[in-house]
């Protein structure tokens, strides 16, 4: 007997037994189960005193109110950014000082040992200093931002964000839970892409997947913060500077959200046509996060995560940069040749060849983009040693001619360019279709290039730079 068919036959038999009652029976089954749980619950649950204050409802009255809902959302975002920017400053300075002190000692050691120059260059100026930059510039903002975000997540704020924003997503033909997947994207876009599984409809899941990269992940966020702070710092007092930098970062993030909505809208009217599918969202009760534990754990988690990625990716990249900067083709270094080759196109976008190259070399992990840029500037230019973060401003603006346009274009391209290797790999694994993976890379890169070129052309036409 063919047992596969037999199972199928059973279904047919069951159908004949039920006959035309089918519809009612389905409902009846679910109802019986719910009735049973209702009865059991009535039996076993009692309240010792009624009329408890419903705090959840009171909090939600404010957090999702038509008047306060959006200002509070923006406010919370801004406060988190501000704490990150203001808080990262000190540890960054401190770490940089420590790391470069150690670098000097390492150099002395190599000299004392009479080690060949290339070995010292590759290991200390390349590998070690890439690590030093990643840890001192990138780690502090990540280690502050991520734990704060985790606190919000633990308290139960994220579903409220989705509740508040859903109307926009619906208008864009997307799913309301995309707000949740975007929130996960702040931590890591690959995690955001995996989180897209909570979206049932394949069409809307794909939209969420393809647009997740417009949320700056933890690896790109510090670049945006660093540039925002660099361009504003120095001109005004520290407090005002971090306030303005915060505003700048918040504007960039909101811009990313706007691009997400626009691209989602575009996709659901072209490639991924369709109606928004059903949407249900549970708003869980607020829960008091275990502040101490969450903070300690996520700081440690982030640190380990960043350090291990730095070792695996930043260190080799640093070595590569050094090799490129110290070997020549014709009469220029490979590094300069590559940058020169990219320069005409990069220039159209308001960038320079080194910046674009840093983005390209940063493909394995976004957190190495800015460190790579610094290193290529340092190794190609006159300044050999960087002693503090204040030198960064000098390096970019005075030595490499950055204007506000360079800064803005770099920030925009950091927000809108191809996803990192890990994210693309994850998209491929989730969607199992290389065309979508390719689109996930081309879409943000294309949009970033177009925006940068437009802004640059405008700024130049209006003589703003």
């Amino acid at each position, binding site marked *: 007997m063919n047992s596969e068919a037999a199972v199928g036959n059973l279904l047919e038999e069951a159908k004949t037994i039920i006959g035309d009652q089918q519809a009612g029976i389905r409902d009846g089954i679910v*109802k019986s189960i719910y009735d049973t749980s209702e009865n059991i619950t009535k039996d076993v649950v009692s309240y010792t005193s009624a009329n408890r204050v419903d705090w959840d409802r009171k909090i939600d009255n404010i957090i999702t109110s038509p008047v306060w809902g959006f200002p509070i959302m923006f406010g919370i975002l801004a406060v988190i950014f501000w704490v990150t920017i203001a808080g990262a400053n000190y540890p960054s300075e401190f770490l940089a000082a420590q790391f470069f002190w150690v670098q000097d000692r390492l150099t002395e050691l190599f000299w004392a040992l009479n080690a060949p120059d290339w070995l010292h260059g590759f290991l200390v100026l390349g590998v070690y200093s890439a690590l030093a930059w990643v840890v001192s510039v990138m780690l502090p903002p990540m280690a502050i931002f991520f734990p704060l975000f985790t606190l919000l997540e633990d308290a139960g704020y994220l579903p409220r964000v989705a509740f508040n924003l859903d109307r*926009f997503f619906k208008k864009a033909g997307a799913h309301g839970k995309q707000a949740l997947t975007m929130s996960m994207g702040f931590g890591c876009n690959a995690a955001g892409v995996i989180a897209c599984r909570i979206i049932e409809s394949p069409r809307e899941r794909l939209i969420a997947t393809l647009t997740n990269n417009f949320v700056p992940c933890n690896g790109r966020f510090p670049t945006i913060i660093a540039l925002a702070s660099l361009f504003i710092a120095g001109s005004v007092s520290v407090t005002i500077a971090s306030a303005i930098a915060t505003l700048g970062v918040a504007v960039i993030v909101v811009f990313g959200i706007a691009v997400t909505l626009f691209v989602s809208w575009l996709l659901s009217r072209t490639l991924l046509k369709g109606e928004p599918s059903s949407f249900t969202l549970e708003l869980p009760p607020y829960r008091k996060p275990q502040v101490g534990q969450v903070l300690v754990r996520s700081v440690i988690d982030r640190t380990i995560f960043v350090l291990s990625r730095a070792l695996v990716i930043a260190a080799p990249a640093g070595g590569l940069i050094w090799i490129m900067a110290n070997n020549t083709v014709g009469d220029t270094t490979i590094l300069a040749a590559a940058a020169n080759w990219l320069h005409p196109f990069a220039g159209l976008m308001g960038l320079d060849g080194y910046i674009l190259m840093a983005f390209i070399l940063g493909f394995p992990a976004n957190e190495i983009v800015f460190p790579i840029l610094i290193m290529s500037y340092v190794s190609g230019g006159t300044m050999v040693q960087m002693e503090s973060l204040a030198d960064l401003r000098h390096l970019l603006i005075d030595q490499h001619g950055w204007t506000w346009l360079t800064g803005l274009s770099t920030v925009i391209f950091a927000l809108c360019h191809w996803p990192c290797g890990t994210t693309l790999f994850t998209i491929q694994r989730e969607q199992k279709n290389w065309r979508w993976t390719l689109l996930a890379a081309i879409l943000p890169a294309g949009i970033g290039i177009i925006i940068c070129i437009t802004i640059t052309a405008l700024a130049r036409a209006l003589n703003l730079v």
Partner: protein
Amino acid sequence: MNNSTPLNRLGNGCCALVTELNAEGLTRRRLLDLGLVPGTKVEVIRRSPLGDPIAFNIRGAIIAFRKEEAEKVLVVQVS
């Protein structure tokens, strides 16, 4: 039932009993599994700042629906 209304028409704070689901297939199953079987009491909790979606208390959990789903749930208002 003649005096039943779609769930999305009720104002905040209203309570109602489910009479019928105006949906078929998967949507119907999902609504049922969320506990919206006929006779279930539902309370309208709040609307999103932009009016849609709407959050309801269904069997002890706060669950939000978009207008399109909410209007598939027919209810009679109770006090």
